[in-house]
C-alpha cells in the first residue's frame, strides 16, 4: 500500500485546489490506500475529508501542517483520538496565543507538551531541517532533527523526502536520507499535494495569487515553480523515489499505525447541576409539571400522558441535561425581560412548551413529538431560539459564565466562493481592473455557488447586458471550478456549543469576529464530534416587539382581534413579520384568514415547495368553500381537517403513515425524511411497498393504500414543519396587531431596527404615510437619537445620519436638554462634532428651522467650525458659554438654496430616505402629461384595464413556480404607495435586463384584481426618458401624498 501523508485541501484557504470528492476520486482510481489531510494550521476539513474518503474505501488520516515560531512548517499526524486531541490543543494554543495581527506560530515548548500519539514529518522546504540543509547548515539541521526526536521519539519522527521536481531536490533528498541514517530515524516520501490532478494547477496558481494579492504576471515566493503538487500515483511516486524505497515503504507503515479517522463519543453535553443533588431526569420532570400547571391550569390525563411519553424519550436518549440547559437559558432571558421565541421542530414538544422554551402548545395543536425527537432516529435535538439582538449578547455572556470559557464556543462558518467573489478574486489575479470586475460581478445575481457561463445562459438580464462575455471565458472557467471553495473562516451568527470536557480536546479553537472564540468545525460537522449545538439567533422582529412594548402591553394582545384580521385580509401587511412579501400579501388578500390556524398555514404555504406543488390555490379555494374538501380515507379527516384536506405539514405525513399503515413513529419520520429530501426512487419504492403492506394488514384496501401513498408522496416533499410555522405565525399575528393598533410606533420600531424585513426604510415611510402618518424631518432641536413616534407621526432620528456616532447623537440630545440650539454656531460650540457629520446634518435638513437656506447653512457651518476652533483654543471660553450671543449674524448673501431635486438627492445620500420628497414627485408632471396612472389610481380600476405606471423597482425576484417557468415578481413604489407586478417568462426574457438593473421603470400592463388585492400583469417594460425628470418643478410633497 502507498499512502499520501501530506495533502492539502481547499481548507488550507486559497492553498488547495481540489475538493474532497476530487481527492477521494483521484486516490481511488490511482490505487492510493490512505490519505492524510494536512491543511495549514487547521482541522476544519477533517470531518468532510473522512466522509469523502470512507465513501471510496480509502483510509483517512487526520493531521495538519503546523507553522512554528520562525515560520517553519512541520507536518503532524494523529495516530489515534488521543493524538487528535493533542493536535487540537496544539492548534488552539497556536491560534489563541497568537497576538492580533501576527501569524500563527507554535512554540517548541507547546510541541513538547502535546507531542504524544503524534507522528511528525519534517515538512516541505519551509520546514526547519530542509531549509537549513538548503543553506548548507548541516550541523544545525542535525541539531534540529535531534530536537524533534527528543520531542516526538525516534520512531515517530520522519524526515520528509518530497518529489516535486524542484531545483536542488535530488541533493536535498540525498542529504535528508543520509541524516536519517546517521540519526537512525525513518524517511517518508510525499509530494506535498495541493490539488488532485496536474490540470488543477492553474486554479491553484490563481488562488495563490488571490491569497498573496498578486497578479499572474507578478513574481512571488509563494507561487509554485511547476505543476507537480498533484496527487501522484503510486507508480509515479515509485519512479521518483526509486533510490529511496524505504521512504516509500514508510508511508504504508505510518498509515497502518494510524487509526482510520475520528471516532467521537455520541454525547459530550455537560451534566446539569440540579439543586440539592437531584438527578437531571427528576428535576426535569418537576419543572415540566410545574410549567404544565402554569400553562394549562389543570394537568389532564391527556396532558400527563403526552408529557410522560416525551420525558421517557428524552431520558432514554440521555438529553435531560440538554433540555435543562435550554430551560436555564430561557429562564435567564425571562428573568431579564429579554424577548425570545423558540422555533423550529422544538415547538413539536409539549415539554419545551411547559419549560417556556417555545410558545406553541404542541398538545392543543396536535403536533407530533416524533418530528422533533424519536428513539429510532436517536438524533441530537436541535432547539433554535430567537432573541432580540441586544438581549442575545447577555444570554451568551450568561452561558459563558455558567459553563466556563474553556467549554463554550461559537460555531464557525466558512465564507465560500460564490460567482461574484470568484470573479472578483480570480479576475484580479488575472489582471482585470477592480472597476471592471466590480461592474461585471454586480451584474450576476447573488448565487452561493455555480458556473458563470450557465448563469449567463439562464438569466436574460445577463444575456442582454451587452457585456462582452467572450473576454472573460477563461475567468469564468476558473470561477466555476473555485465555486464553493472556502475562502476564510467566519463566525456563525447564533450557533453555540457547550461541552462537558474542555473543547480543545475535540476541536481546535481560534478567534473569530469581534474576538469571539470559534470552533474550527461548522454547524454541519460539529455534531460528528459529539457536540450539541444551541442556535441562539438574533431576530430583529423581537427587538421591534421590545421597542413597541414601551407603548403597548404585549401581554394583553387579544387572541383573535377582528381588526387585526381585517388588516391581514386587506393584504396591506408591509412590515408584518412573515406576511409582507408580495406573494404573502397576495395570499392574504384572497385567503380571508380569521384565526391563527390560517396564519400558520400561510407561513407554510408561501414556500418554494407548496408553490411548486400547486398547493396554494386548492388551499384558498377549500378555505373559502369554493372547492369541496374530501378525504381519501375517513381516518384522514382528523389529520387533514385543519388544512382542508391538503397535506401541508411534515407532521401530517408522519401521522398519516402512523394511522393508516401503522408505521412506528420512527418509521414514519424516516418516510418524511426520504420524501422531504427527495431521496432515491428506490428508497421511495421500498417505503411505498412497506406502506401498502402495513396498511393492508390494518384492513385498508390495497388500491386505497396505494392512492393514499401516492397522495402523500405528491405533497410531502413540499411539506413544512408545522411547529416552526406555528411559532412564526404567533409572532406574525402580534406584529400585525401592533401595525393595526400602533402603526406609528410600529413603523418607527421597524425603522430603528434596520436592516430587517423585505422592504427598505423608504418604502416603509411610503407605507406609513399612506396610513396617514406624517414623517417629520430631521430637526436638530426635535430629533431624538432614534426614530420616535407620536400617535400620528414619526420623527427621523439623529442616528439615521450617515457617519453619525452614538456618542455624538447622545451628546446632541444631552446638550439640547439644557437649552435648544439657536444657530449652527451655537451647535458647533456645544457639541464636539466632526465636519463630515455636521455637513451631513445640514444636508439632511437638521438645521432647516434655524437656517432655512441649506446652501447658506453650509457656508455658516464652515465659518462656525473655524471660529469654534479659535474660541475653543482660548482658555477664557469653553462649552457653557452662550456663543449664540457672541456669534456674528449670518451673512445675508443673495444665494439661492439647493433645488428640491438637489435636496432630495442629498437627503437620500445622508439619511437613506427623505421626509419631504419622493423620487416620483420629480417625474409626476411628465407622468401626468403622458397618462401614467399612480398606484393609488390603479387600486380603483377594474380588472382587465390596461394601464401605464412608473415607479421605483423594489425587490424583483424569481421564486420557483408550479410550471417550472421563470416568473418575476416585483413591487413598484411611487409617492402614493406600492403596486405588485408579475412578469411572465416571455416578457422576462425580453425585459429582464431592465428589470434587474434599473431603479426606476415604466410598466405597461393589465390590472388584475384577485380577492382584495390589485396587481399588474406586465406586458411591456420601459425606461423613462431623461427629460421626464424635472429638477425645478415637482409635484407636491411626500408629506401630502397620503392614500
Amino acid at each position: 500500500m502507498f499512502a499520501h501523508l501530506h495533502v492539502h485541501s481547499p481548507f488550507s484557504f486559497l492553498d488547495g485546489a481540489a475538493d474532497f470528492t476530487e481527492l477521494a476520486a483521484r486516490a481511488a482510481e490511482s490505487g492510493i490506500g490512505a490519505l492524510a489531510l494536512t491543511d495549514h494550521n487547521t482541522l476544519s476539513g477533517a470531518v468532510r475529508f473522512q466522509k469523502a474518503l470512507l465513501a471510496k474505501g480509502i483510509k483517512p488520516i487526520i493531521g495538519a501542517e503546523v507553522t512554528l515560531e520562525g515560520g517553519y512548517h512541520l507536518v503532524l499526524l494523529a495516530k489515534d483520538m488521543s493524538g487528535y486531541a493533542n493536535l487540537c490543543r496544539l492548534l488552539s494554543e497556536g491560534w489563541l496565543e497568537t497576538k492580533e495581527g501576527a501569524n500563527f506560530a507554535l512554540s517548541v515548548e507547546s510541541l513538547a507538551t502535546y507531542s504524544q500519539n503524534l507522528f511528525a514529518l519534517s515538512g516541505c522546504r519551509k520546514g526547519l531541517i530542509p531549509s537549513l540543509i538548503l543553506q548548507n547548515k548541516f550541523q544545525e539541521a542535525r541539531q534540529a532533527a535531534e530536537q524533534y526526536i527528543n520531542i516526538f521519539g525516534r520512531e515517530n519522527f520522519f524526515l520528509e523526502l518530497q518529489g516535486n521536481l524542484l531545483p536542488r531536490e535530488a541533493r536535498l533528498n540525498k542529504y535528508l536520507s543520509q541524516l536519517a541514517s546517521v540519526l537512525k530515524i525513518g524517511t517518508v516520501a510525499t509530494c506535498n499535494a495541493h490539488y488532485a490532478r496536474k490540470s488543477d494547477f492553474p486554479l491553484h496558481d490563481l488562488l495563490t495569487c488571490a491569497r498573496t494579492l498578486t497578479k499572474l504576471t507578478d513574481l512571488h515566493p509563494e507561487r509554485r515553480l511547476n505543476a507537480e503538487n498533484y496527487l501522484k500515483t503510486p507508480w509515479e511516486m515509485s519512479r521518483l523515489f526509486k533510490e529511496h524505497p524505504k521512504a516509500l515503504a514508510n508511508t504504508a507503515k505510518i498509515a497502518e499505525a494510524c487509526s482510520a479517522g475520528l471516532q467521537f463519543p455520541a454525547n459530550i453535553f455537560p451534566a446539569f447541576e440540579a439543586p440539592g443533588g437531584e438527578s437531571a431526569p427528576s428535576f426535569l420532570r418537576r419543572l415540566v409539571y410545574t410549567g404544565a400547571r402554569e400553562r394549562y391550569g389543570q394537568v389532564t390525563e391527556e396532558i400527563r400522558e403526552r408529557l410522560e411519553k416525551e420525558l421517557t424519550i428524552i431520558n432514554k436518549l440521555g438529553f435531560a441535561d440538554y433540555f435543562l440547559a435550554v430551560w436555564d437559558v430561557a429562564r435567564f432571558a425571562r428573568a431579564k425581560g429579554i424577548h425570545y421565541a423558540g422555533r423550529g421542530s422544538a415547538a413539536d414538544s409539549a415539554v419545551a412548551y411547559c419549560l417556556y422554551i417555545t410558545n406553541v402548545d404542541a398538545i392543543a395543536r396536535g403536533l407530533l413529538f416524533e418530528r422533533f425527537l424519536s428513539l429510532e432516529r436517536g438524533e441530537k435535538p436541535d432547539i433554535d431560539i430567537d432573541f432580540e439582538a441586544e438581549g442575545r449578547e447577555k444570554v451568551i455572556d450568561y452561558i459563558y459564565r455558567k459553563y466556563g470559557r474553556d467549554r463554550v464556543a461559537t460555531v464557525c462558518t466558512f465564507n465560500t466562493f460564490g460567482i461574484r467573489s470568484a470573479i472578483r478574486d480570480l479576475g484580479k489575479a488575472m489582471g482585470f481592473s477592480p472597476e471592471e470586475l466590480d461592474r461585471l460581478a454586480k451584474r450576476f445575481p447573488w448565487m452561493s455557488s455555480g458556473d458563470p457561463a450557465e448563469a449567463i445562459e439562464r438569466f436574460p438580464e445577463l444575456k442582454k447586458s451587452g457585456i462582452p462575455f467572450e473576454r472573460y471565458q477563461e475567468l469564468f472557467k476558473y470561477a466555476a471550478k473555485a465555486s464553493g471553495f472556502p475562502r476564510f473562516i467566519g463566525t456563525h451568527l447564533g450557533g453555540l456549543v457547550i461541552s462537558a470536557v474542555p473543547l480543545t480536546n475535540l476541536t481546535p479553537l481560534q478567534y473569530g469576529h469581534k474576538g469571539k472564540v470559534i470552533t474550527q468545525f461548522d454547524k454541519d460537522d460539529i455534531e460528528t464530534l459529539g457536540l450539541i449545538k444551541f442556535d441562539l439567533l438574533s431576530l430583529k422582529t423581537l427587538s421591534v416587539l421590545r421597542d413597541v412594548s414601551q407603548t403597548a402591553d404585549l401581554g394583553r394582545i387579544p387572541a383573535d382581534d377582528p381588526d387585526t384580521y381585517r388588516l391581514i385580509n386587506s393584504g396591506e401587511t408591509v412590515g408584518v413579520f412573515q406576511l409582507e412579501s408580495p406573494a404573502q400579501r397576495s395570499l392574504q388578500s384572497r385567503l380571508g384568514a380569521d384565526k391563527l390556524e390560517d396564519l400558520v398555514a400561510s407561513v407554510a404555504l408561501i414556500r418554494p415547495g407548496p408553490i411548486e406543488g400547486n398547493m396554494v390555490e386548492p388551499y384558498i379555494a377549500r378555505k373559502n368553500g369554493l372547492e369541496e374538501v374530501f378525504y381519501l380515507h375517513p381516518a384522514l379527516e382528523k389529520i387533514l381537517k385543519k388544512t382542508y384536506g391538503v397535506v401541508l405539514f411534515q407532521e401530517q405525513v408522519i401521522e398519516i403513515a402512523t394511522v393508516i399503515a401503522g408505521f412506528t413513529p420512527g418509521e414514519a419520520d424516516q418516510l418524511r425524511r426520504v420524501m422531504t429530501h427527495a431521496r432515491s426512487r428506490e428508497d421511495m419504492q421500498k417505503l411505498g411497498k412497506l406502506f401498502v403492506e402495513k396498511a393492508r394488514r390494518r384492513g385498508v384496501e390495497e388500491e386505497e393504500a396505494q392512492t393514499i401513498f401516492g397522495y402523500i408522496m405528491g405533497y410531502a416533499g413540499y411539506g413544512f414543519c408545522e411547529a416552526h410555522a406555528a411559532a412564526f405565525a404567533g409572532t406574525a399575528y402580534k406584529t400585525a396587531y401592533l401595525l393595526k393598533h400602533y402603526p406609528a410606533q410600529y413603523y418607527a420600531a421597524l425603522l430603528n431596527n434596520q436592516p430587517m424585513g423585505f422592504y427598505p426604510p423608504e418604502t416603509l415611510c411610503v407605507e406609513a404615510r399612506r396610513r396617514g402618518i406624517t414623517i417629520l424631518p430631521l430637526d436638530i432641536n426635535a430629533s431624538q437619537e432614534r426614530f420616535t413616534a407620536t400617535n400620528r407621526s414619526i420623527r427621523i432620528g439623529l442616528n439615521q445620519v450617515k457617519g453619525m456616532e452614538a456618542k455624538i447623537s447622545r451628546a446632541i440630545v444631552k446638550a439640547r436638554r439644557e437649552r435648544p440650539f439657536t444657530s449652527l454656531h451655537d451647535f458647533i460650540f456645544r457639541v464636539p462634532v466632526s465636519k463630515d457629520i455636521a455637513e451631513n446634518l445640514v444636508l439632511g435638513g437638521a438645521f432647516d428651522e434655524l437656517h432655512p437656506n441649506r446652501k447658506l447653512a453650509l457656508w455658516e457651518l464652515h465659518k462656525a467650525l473655524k471660529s469654534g476652533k479659535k474660541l475653543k483654543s482660548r482658555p477664557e471660553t469653553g462649552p457653557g458659554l452662550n456663543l449664540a450671543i457672541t456669534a456674528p449674524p449670518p451673512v445675508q448673501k443673495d444665494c439661492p438654496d439647493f433645488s428640491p431635486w438637489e435636496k432630495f438627492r442629498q437627503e437620500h445620500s445622508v439619511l437613506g430616505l427623505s421626509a419631504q420628497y419622493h423620487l416620483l414627485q420629480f417625474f409626476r408632471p411628465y407622468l401626468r402629461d403622458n397618462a401614467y396612472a399612480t398606484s393609488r389610481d390603479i387600486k380603483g380600476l377594474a380588472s382587465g384595464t390596461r394601464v401605464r405606471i412608473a415607479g421605483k423597482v423594489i425587490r424583483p425576484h424569481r421564486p420557483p413556480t408550479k410550471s417550472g417557468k421563470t416568473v418575476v415578481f416585483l413591487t413598484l413604489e411611487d409617492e402614493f404607495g406600492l403596486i405588485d407586478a408579475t412578469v411572465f417568462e416571455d416578457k422576462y426574457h425580453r425585459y429582464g435586463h431592465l428589470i434587474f438593473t434599473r431603479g426606476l421603470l415604466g410598466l405597461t400592463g393589465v390590472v388584475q384584481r384577485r380577492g382584495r388585492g390589485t396587481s399588474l400583469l406586465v406586458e411591456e417594460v420601459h425606461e423613462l426618458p431623461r427629460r421626464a425628470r424635472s429638477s425645478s418643478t415637482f409635484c407636491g410633497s411626500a408629506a401630502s401624498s397620503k392614500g
Partner: protein
Amino acid sequence: MSKKSNRLVQVTCRAGVPATLAWKGGRQVERITEILDSWREIGAWWSGEEERQVYLVVTASQKSYELCHNLAIDTWYLARIFD
C-alpha cells in the same frame, strides 16, 4: 556570470537524461559529463507557455549550460550559458 540564450539545440539522451549536446547543425557537439541539477518549470501558463524540464549540465569541455526540454513539442533549447 551567465548569459541568456534562446538557441535551439539537438540533444541525445541516455537513460532518460541528456548525454550529448549539438548545435550549428550538428557541426559542434559536446558530451555531457555531469548533470548538476534538474527541475521542472511551468512558465507563463496563462499565455500558452508550455511545461519544460530544465537541466544544469557540465560538458566535457568543462562548460556549464542550462538546457531546457519543451515537453509538449519535444524540442530542446539552450536557456543559459555559464562562464
